[in-house]
């Protein structure tokens, strides 16, 4: 198995052709949406990991704020170019596999991983 890009694990990473991309988190800005589209373009399969990626929540809680609360947070949204709504991953790109939950469902993740390892000939099924 070749881990290509994981900034939590190492400094030197290469973002190039990927068999599988695992994506955590919801999309709060145009930059994040562009990065996600780039990753999708490079990946054969894309897996959305965890509640924020799959459903948007709880990161998307500002989507439900009333007008008064929205005007309170408006300066921050403008200053850092937030998108008007927080988006879940499949509102931006096609998702092949979903692993929901906060924290994600570990058993489901291991099942998904096993299936993908077989599919991409890393292990024999």
């Amino acid at each position: 198995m070749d881990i290509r890009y994981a900034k939590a694990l190492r400094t030197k990473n290469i973002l190039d052709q990927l068999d599988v991309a695992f994506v955590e988190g919801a999309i709060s800005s145009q930059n994040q949406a562009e990065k996600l589209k780039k990753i999708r373009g490079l990946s054969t399969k894309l897996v959305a990991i965890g509640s924020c990626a799959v459903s948007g929540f709880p990161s998307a809680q500002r989507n439900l704020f009333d007008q008064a609360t929205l005007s309170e947070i408006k300066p921050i949204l403008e200053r850092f170019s937030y998108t008007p709504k927080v988006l879940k991953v499949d509102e931006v790109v096609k998702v092949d596999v979903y692993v929901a939950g906060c924290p994600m469902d570990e058993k489901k993740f291991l099942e998904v991983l096993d299936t993908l390892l077989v599919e991409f000939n890393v292990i024999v099924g």
Partner: protein
Amino acid sequence: MSELLAHRSKSNMHNSSFDLTLDQITKIEGAAGLDVSVRGGKVVDLRLKLSEYKRFYTQGVRGKSVPAVPQLLARICGTCSNAHILCSIEACEKALGIVPSAQTMIMRRLAINGLMIRDHGLHLYVFALPDLLGKDSILELDENNPKEKQFLEDTFCVKKAGNMLSVAFGGRSVHAPYLTIGGFLKFPSADDLTGCKNFLIKARPAAQRLVKLFSDSQFKFYDQTNFVGLIGENRYDFLEGKIKTSKDGVIEEANFRQHLEHQVIPYSQASGYKFKRETYMVGALARVNLAKEKLNENTIKNVGYVLSRFPSTNVFDNNLAQAIEILHCIDDSLLLLGSNQFNPEKPASTQKKDGVGVGVIEAPRGTLYHMLEIKDNKVARAEIIVPTGQNQISIEKNLVRLVEENIDLDKEQLSHEIEKFVRAYDPCISCATHFLKINFH
């Protein structure tokens, strides 16, 4: 860094001019970047940008009914979720006058010990260890090299011991479902307790190796700062005590906020804080500096040889302090598991529906503050201050000096020194950008 300092003196540091951008500092919790501008050997601009996007928890929690609050606020962060749960539980209990039982407090102590072991373990083995071994990643450790194989095994052993404690005394290592206002929803089985003891005993030698490894580290950066932490009266404690500082003495938990000064950092998505108008440092180094004599006696017996180094102003000793705390949490948990039974009891409750409560605990990365104002059993107002927000201004200030002292390194080496230094604080950017507090005008 001593060899780097020697190198500097031979060179033409006064002429250096460059710009350096790190899009994303690696091997930390969450996303932070850095922009540095150097002109004539001096840093003219340095911006540490915490670049996670805000999720507005202090707004989102308004109107939520009290029992749901700790689990929602836990979502501020994955890795230290259980610290947020425990802190907001304390805030809710203080607001509504709920007094948890002695057994509950012991069980919570075991829950936070589990968190400390697992979270410090993650930082030390996965993020900090590669720097000590001269590697880019734990993924590069060689299973055929006996020393490196040992560290790989230790990584899983220590994390497993912490996870097992959190599962037994919380139901899960993150977002623990059994921790609740007033007590616990479920109690550990006999098998859970035996499993915990066995794994803690197994992890103990690994923790000792970790202390040795970080005590041998030659990384140095001295900061004569004010160290601040919640310190227990009679023992090394993460949940109860008073705020102690290395410069100013003692403060009651409920008064902590009055001493903090909020700082808007226009290019960062997180708020910074000063303590009595000065930068300060929270975290394992602050705790060991302020309370090393209160560590578990077995810990002191085994790693007493490094304790004479504390109080230390070397920021890199934060790693060593975390390793010492892992051992302490193992020893404290073994003590508690050996001398207590855990009998099911109902969570303490109250008829009170209104009040203001402050929770202050020591999270793995330092002092965590939750203030909740509750009206008719719902949150009316919340304020949350996290460790990384408090360390942020210190990190930035110290990076100016670090860059100027290493100005002749090539950009790759300089970037590495910067990242290594930021990592020593074990920042958690997810936590730092959870909320909103702005005064732009």
